[in-house]
């Protein structure tokens, strides 16, 4: 049988792109074995490209059973051995193994980062029969034909073992933390209550929850204090302008009132006009974190959603590899070629041509670097299919950001006129753009407020129409949202660009937090309290960051993985002993919190009938039917009750009906679109429907 080169990729889409790019005629043949796709291409010789499905191997314990801890003995196994619902992986591995039998050359073409390197390594070692030391490596940042061909021609002679070591260590340390601590919590709660509930924590999850709890504590114990602001309305050339008092915050009502009295009915005099020009620098190219924050701010997409969309665009060869922490755009990516290709799209033609007319293209870069990939940039390819609206938005954002970084800074002018009113100063502020620069390229995504002031001169007298006193209160610190939390994790150096979004999602899935403006639930509080009380080291942000740094050092060959693993176990051992010793106490605390969380889940809102009780989803003892009832029923105060649909699931929406102000619930029935239900029988919306 003809021998061939076997290329392993991370995902099926990447396999298809690589095979098509490497095939002489650009038409690789798609074949299937037991439903597993692979591609055959011809170049200098026959090439078979087979995809993985992300990680096909995982870490699991040596011995069976899930009901014990500590566990320090582990091994790498195919995912179907360790995970329920991963049976399809077995077929996948069989196909790869079969294809490896007749291959004489092996190449890993998985994404060039920790995860991709580990995926390729595991397949080459375990599935292809210890081929990891004879395998070569393709390195690329985009799935464009040109770059893939180049990466094949100039492939690296061997795998990047330091990346692999770093990946293995990260997975093993995370597994040790996750399995042991999660089991300790789950087993403690189950042993105390006799009921099972999944509780989890991990090396990064705990410290992340810690930020959220710290913020929640500040918000919940916040006491606002009063202060006052003074504004005035002045008339200049027939137009009214609002001016602000020189002191932004006035601490006492007495002082505020005396200023108002002094300025009332008095004329204003323009004492001074300050005009200042300043440069507004272009933004830096997107690394994953800034793309996720920007997409959250502009479109409200969660970090995980943005990553998924970016990943799809990458697999469509529209943008470069998104899991990067780089803010650099090396000239090797060929700025000019990208812009020329982008200019083929009507919406970018004019902008791209403007940039191409420049004598030199030099991007404004950020400080962050990534040894494996440049910042996220458009490849210049245009979509071969109709993009969904979210995909179109993210692609457009990446394209415009890319163009903006090559542009000149914007030149803005700020103007401050000082108006003297009976010895008190007020400021009239204006702001305008003198030269758009990069703002023109990034226009839909950047807000530049323009306040153009009238023609005024120093010494001019103006009419003060009104002086306004505003009562204000200090505000609690803002709640984190998925975007700002991701930024915080990045700032604190915990988690990786690839895992942060998933960690935030896990906090939601475990019901430790809820809502978009993140609120920590009682369960979240209790879990963190247990961790802080019995194992403060595992939620220490400092220790987590240090461990993170040491794992990064493995990647640079300046730390040994064995040392990191031994130290991780040294931290975990005494912690787990303490948890085991206090299991009953912890179990009681967590079980009560779980019970409260489950009750909280069923609370619909305040009872609109009695105004003091809470409406809850209850079940009739007699009939077993589901309904909404008031908690005050048990005190004999209120007997409000409302029927509910008996099929599907009903979840409180935590918002009120626009028509009647009663709380709303959502009903989900399999196969039907979920709908919002106002259970108020007299809601005007229902009345209208009847007529």
């Amino acid at each position, binding site marked *: 049988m003809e021998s061939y080169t076997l290329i392993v990729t991370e995902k099926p889409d990447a396999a298809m792109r690589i095979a098509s790019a490497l095939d002489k005629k650009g038409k690789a043949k798609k074949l299937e074995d037991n439903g597993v796709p692979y591609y055959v291409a011809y170049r200098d010789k026959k090439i078979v490209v087979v995809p993985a499905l992300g990680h096909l191997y995982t870490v699991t314990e040596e011995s069976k059973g899930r009901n014990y801890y500590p566990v320090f003995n582990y091994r790498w196994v195919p995912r179907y051995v360790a995970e329920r619902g991963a049976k399809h992986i077995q077929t996948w591995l069989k196909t790869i193994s079969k294809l490896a039998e007749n291959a004489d050359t092996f190449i890993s073409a998985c994404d060039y980062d920790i995860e991709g390197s580990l995926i390729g390594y595991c397949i080459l070692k375990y599935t292809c029969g210890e081929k990891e030391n004879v395998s070569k490596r393709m390195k690329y940042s985009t799935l464009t034909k040109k770059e893939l061909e180049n990466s094949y021609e100039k492939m690296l002679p061997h795998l990047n073992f330091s990346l692999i070591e770093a990946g293995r260590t990260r997975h093993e340390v995370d597994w040790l933390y996750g399995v042991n601590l999660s089991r300790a919590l789950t087993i403690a709660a189950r042993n105390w209550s006799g009921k099972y509930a999944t509780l989890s924590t991990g090396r990064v999850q705990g410290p992340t929850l810690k930020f959220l709890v710290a913020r929640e504590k500040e918000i*919940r*114990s916040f*006491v*606002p204090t009063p202060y006052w602001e003074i504004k005035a309305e002045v008339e200049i050339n027939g137009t009214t302008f609002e001016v602000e008092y020189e002191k932004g915050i006035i*601490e*006492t009502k007495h002082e505020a009132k005396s200023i108002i009295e002094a300025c009332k009915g008095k004329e204003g005099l323009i004492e001074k006009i300050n005009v200042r020009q300043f440069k507004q620098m272009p933004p830096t190219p997107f690394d994953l974190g800034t793309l996720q924050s920007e997409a959250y701010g502009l479109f409200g997409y969660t970090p995980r959603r943005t990553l998924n969309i970016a990943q799809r665009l990458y697999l469509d060869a529209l943008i470069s590899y998104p899991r990067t922490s780089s803010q650099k755009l090396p000239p090797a990516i060929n700025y000019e070629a990208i812009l020329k290709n982008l200019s083929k799209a009507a919406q970018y033609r004019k902008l791209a041509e403007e940039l191409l007319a420049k004598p030199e293209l030099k991007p404004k870069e950020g400080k962050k670097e990534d040894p494996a990939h440049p910042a996220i940039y458009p490849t210049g390819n245009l979509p071969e299919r109709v993009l969904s609206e979210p995909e179109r938005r993210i692609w457009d954002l990446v394209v415009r950001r890319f163009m903006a970084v090559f542009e000149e800074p914007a030149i803005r002018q700020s103007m401050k006129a000082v108006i003297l009113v009976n010895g008190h100063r007020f400021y009239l502020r204006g702001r305008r753009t003198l030269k758009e620069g990069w703002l023109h390229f990034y226009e839909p995504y950047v807000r530049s407020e323009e306040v153009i002031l009238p023609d005024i001169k120093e010494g001019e007298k103006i009419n003060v129409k009104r002086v306004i006193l505003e009562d204000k209160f200090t505000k609690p610190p803002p709640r984190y949202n998925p975007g700002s939390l991701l930024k915080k994790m990045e700032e604190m150096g915990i988690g990786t660009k690839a895992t942060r979004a998933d960690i935030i999602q896990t906090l939601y899935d475990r019901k430790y937090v809820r809502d978009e403006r993140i609120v920590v639930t009682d369960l979240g509080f209790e879990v963190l309290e247990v961790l802080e009380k019995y194992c403060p080291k595992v939620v220490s942000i400092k220790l987590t960051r240090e461990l993170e740094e040491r794992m990064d050092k493995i990647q640079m060959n300046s730390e040994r993985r064995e040392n990191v693993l031994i130290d991780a176990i040294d931290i975990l051992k005494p912690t787990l002993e303490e948890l085991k010793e206090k299991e009953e106490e912890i179990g009681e605390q967590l079980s009560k919190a779980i019970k409260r969380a489950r009750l909280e889940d069923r609370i619909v809102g305040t009872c609109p009938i009695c105004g003091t009780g809470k409406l809850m989803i209850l079940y009739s003892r007699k009939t077993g039917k589901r309904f909404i009832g008031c908690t005050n029923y048990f005190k004999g105060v209120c007997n409000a009750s409302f029927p509910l649909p008996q099929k599907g699931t009903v979840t409180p929406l935590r918002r009120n009906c626009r028509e009647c102000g009663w709380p709303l619930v959502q009903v989900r029935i399999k196969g039907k679109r979920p709908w919002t239900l106002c259970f108020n029988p007299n809601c005007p919306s229902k009345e209208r429907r009847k007529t």
Partner: protein
Amino acid sequence: MKCVICNREAVKKGYCELHFKAYNNIIEKYDVWKKSSEASWKEYLNSIIKNPLTGEWAREVAEYLIKTVENDVEKI
């Protein structure tokens, strides 16, 4: 001993750790309120109870304190 407001373990002055933090905030911020708007202790507590910016635990403590306002005035 249990917290006078919730079911948690009381750590100081009859409050659990969380409500004690809120209690401390209420005491500290009273000086600012007194200076800025000359509010009495009772007026202050009523104002923060009504204020939507007040945190949940601080409101609970304020509601509890208002019930025992006479004693607290003496203390302060």
